[in-house]
């Protein structure tokens, strides 16, 4: 036992070092700068900030919109998770990739697309005279748009590997369709469900761009307030108190989640996903498929289609003018051809993915065996960056990593590091439920047959987790590709990444700039879709040899 603990600690050392150096230390530095003055702690500031009546309003709004967004996302996306896990239909892989595209698009672009649908003169306005801009509904729908894939991928990923025969057995024993699902499948899905719900809540709790653009200036989340205090007013004491408050909220959330998962998580007999899906049979399944496709069409594809439409729209009708302009510098705003941003983004995202896979993968392997004692809570710790304001991390980098040998402030590496910080928790979340669901008797059997622990891991865990690993890599890559928050607060030496280039083009007047921004967003969208599709293809096509 102690030896295995030592192995796990050794495995955990790199992720923990990464976390400490590139997250805990910078954030502590910036919070400390806010709370200390002339060598003394000023906790009086905390009292002042916390008793501000405006803050109560901000906190209340932050919480309830996150809860409502999570509920709505789960309600709309769970049928989708089922359809993708259990049903086979033409174009499934393409659609599976497409639903993840919104997740990586910069909010400034998505905001524009949503306004075109929900705002004045938008589709809803034209059809029914309904305007949703500057309402909470616009915020909630955009949150579903962004997070649909989180639920489909996290829950669907596990669902596809559950043995359907268990549910069939329950039905043979007399349980109704729903009862069988509720008592057999739902408990097995609980860890993934909790993980997905938690992620969605985290993202919407810390929502920034969506709330600003679609809700108008009237609505503010805690994250918006932290941004305003740090980036606009440079009121570090207030920002520090708000950051700690957000930490407390996120930590409480993670503790609850940890309990939930520990209670429900069980060892499951996992099967290859290819064997569990079948073509829809019966009216109910066809209706479900139709419903899911309608939701995806209306909520996800339509806003994306608006982007494409705008990128093709020129003063002389539809054409490729804006795309052609991307390759040159003469007619645009950027000194480098906007096209180069694609290469920069791909390079950064690749580096970030490797870092995230290393960090997150090692952590997941080390945490596979649920421990009592020192390792409990480590996975929650690795999630903290997702609940931390990008401006806090960015400014923390600036003042913490400013002395050799760690003066990374002007290094290109800082951007992928910040991206990996956001990507690593996805890797842990995607791998851990699957690794933990591996039947330990398989490992024991391997050991009995003479396999070393490494060999047993390689022959048992790795093959079973390969799909999760690909999902993790895909997500980490896509997140890095679209990451805008942290990168915008870090000084960057290279040519801009795709989201930054889009934001810069959008910051200038002129139809050509706008059109190029839309064209570049479409390119970002396509690059993501192709990446995700490629990962879909990597998944084993026929793997009946397993078990």
């Amino acid at each position, binding site marked *: 036992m102690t030896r295995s603990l030592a192995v796990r600690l050794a495995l955990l050392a790199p992720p923990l070092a990464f976390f400490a150096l590139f997250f805990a230390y910078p954030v502590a530095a910036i919070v400390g*700068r806010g709370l200390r003055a002339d060598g003394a702690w000023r906790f009086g500031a905390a009292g002042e900030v916390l008793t501000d009546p405006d803050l109560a309003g901000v906190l209340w709004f932050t919480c309830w919109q996150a809860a409502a967004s999570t509920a709505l996302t789960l309600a709309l996306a769970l049928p989708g998770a089922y359809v993708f896990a259990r049903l086979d239909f033409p174009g499934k892989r393409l659609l599976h990739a497409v639903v993840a595209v919104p997740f990586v698009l910069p909010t400034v672009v998505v*905001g*524009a697309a949503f306004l*075109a649908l929900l705002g004045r003169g938008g589709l809803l306005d034209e059809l029914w005279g309904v305007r949703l801009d500057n309402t909470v509904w616009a915020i909630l729908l955009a949150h579903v748009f962004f997070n649909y894939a989180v639920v489909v991928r996290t829950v669907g990923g596990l669902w596809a590997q559950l043995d359907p025969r268990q549910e069939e057995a329950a039905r043979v024993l007399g349980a109704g369709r729903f009862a069988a699902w509720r008592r057999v499948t739902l408990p097995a899905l609980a860890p993934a469900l909790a993980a997905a719900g938690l992620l969605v809540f985290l993202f919407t709790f810390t929502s920034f761009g969506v709330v*600003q*653009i679609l809700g108008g*200036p*009237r609505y503010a989340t805690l994250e918006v307030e932290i*941004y305003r205090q*740090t*980036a*606009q007013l440079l*009121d570090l004491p207030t920002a520090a108190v708000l950051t700690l408050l957000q930490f407390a909220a996120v930590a409480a959330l993670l503790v609850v989640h940890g309990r939930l998962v520990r209670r429900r998580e069980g060892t499951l007999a996992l099967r290859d996903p290819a064997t569990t899906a079948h073509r829809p049979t019966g009216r109910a399944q066809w209706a479900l498929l139709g419903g899911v496709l309608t939701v995806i069409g209306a909520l996800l594809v339509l806003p994306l289609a608006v982007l494409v439409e705008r990128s093709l*729209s*020129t*003063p002389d009708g539809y054409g490729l*003018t804006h795309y052609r302009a991307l390759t040159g510098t003469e007619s645009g705003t*950027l*000194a480098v051809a906007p096209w180069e941003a694609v290469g920069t983004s791909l*390079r*950064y995202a690749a*580096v970030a993915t*490797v870092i995230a896979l290393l960090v997150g993968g090692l952590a997941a392997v080390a945490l596979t065996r649920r421990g009592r004692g020192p390792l409990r809570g480590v996975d929650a710790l690795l999630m903290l960056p997702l609940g931390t304001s990008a*401006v806090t991390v*960015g400014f923390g980098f*600036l003042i913490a990593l400013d*002395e050799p040998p760690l003066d990374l*402030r*002007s*290094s*290109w590496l800082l951007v*992928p590091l910040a991206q990996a910080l956001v990507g690593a928790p996805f890797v842990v979340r995607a791998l851990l439920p699957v690794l933990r669901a591996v039947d330990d008797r*398989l490992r024991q*059997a*391997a050991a009995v047959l003479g396999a070393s622990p490494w060999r047993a891991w390689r*022959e048992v865990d*790795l*093959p079973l987790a*390969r799909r999760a*690993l*690909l999902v993790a*890599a895909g997500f980490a890559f896509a997140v890095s590709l679209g990451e805008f928050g942290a990168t*915008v*607060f*870090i*000084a*960057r*030496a*290279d040519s*801009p990444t795709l989201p930054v280039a889009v934001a810069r083009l*959008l*910051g*200038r*007047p*002129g*139809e*050509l700039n*706008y059109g190029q921004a839309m064209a570049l967003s479409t390119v970002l969208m396509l690059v993501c879709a192709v990446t995700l599709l490629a990962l879909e293809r990597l998944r*084993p096509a026929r793997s009946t040899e397993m*078990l």
Partner: protein
Amino acid sequence: MHRSHPGRARPRRAAVLVTALGLAVLTGCGGGSDDASGGEGDEVVLVTHDSFEIPQEVLDTFTEETGYRVRTLRGGDAGVVVNQAVLSAGNPQGDVLFGVDNTLLSRALDAGVFTPHESAGLASVPEEYQLDAGQHRVTPIDTGDICVNYDRGYFAEHDLAPPETLDELVDPAYRDLLVVENAATSSPGLGFLLATVDAYGEDGWQEYWQRLAENGVEVVDGWEQAYYERFSGAGGSSGDRPLVVSYASSPPAEVAFGGESEELPAEAPTGVSTGTCFRQIEFAGLLDGAAHPEGGRALLDFLLTDTFQRELPMSMFVNPVVETELPEVFTRYGVTVDEPWSVEPAAIAEHREEWVDAWTSLVVR
């Protein structure tokens, strides 16, 4: 478990993926280290905001003349960049900071971000722009005016004269026509608020905004939403408000980036209400504790040369501080704002938060 070995094919695919990613990493590293190591010692690092844009040929000219190679570090908008400089005062990220404007100047000067340097070309810069003339900690580089823009088409169609002054904006004839940006998060939004503070005084601007609110002013969060989504005059826009807070240089930009045919139109599709303008002056300064102070001084001098100044209008859509020949789209479609509104940097630093908070509770909540 493994009944047979066909499964062996799959680890190879995973290996292909890992190798591909690894190669990408290597190319990534290669690209990065080239930037870091080339021309050691002769480098000068320019810290600036995301709107900084200048053709590489111009920077190459600087290298030819002085031997220093310019590396640009961009970090967010002007506010973020200045705050970063304040946080790293004494141990800066680079040598020269470009992009601190008069709304942020006091914050930077008070934090001791800059070290004095009197630029060679300063004599030809009008005194009204030299806000730190006593100490030369910053050098004025360009100016721009934040003004209400109007959609010519709308006003022609409705046979209505576009508003020219702040007073006219509260006229019921212009009810529900104006869209402005959030002063708390957007720099044109803050500029327009400051224009009203200067025009109506510290005691009167709140009453003015009250009337503006009663006249149906719409507030959105950022310039992008205001200009592209709400303003009816932007090319290809579906907005329906013919008045927006933007820049005096927006009409020339509309023409230059209009995407229309080669021929220049008779007039720009949008116009500027010249009585509503707040003047922004952008400065550059040598960062205190810079690693390459000599190169930094040379770069500061270069920023005032004709070579650099004449690129400013078309690259960043701002006005040069040194008199140079302006490009045709500027002379034909731009306006000169003779008496812009302005507020002392020290007063902005002192009251900014208070004004923005008062404005927020007045107009937004």
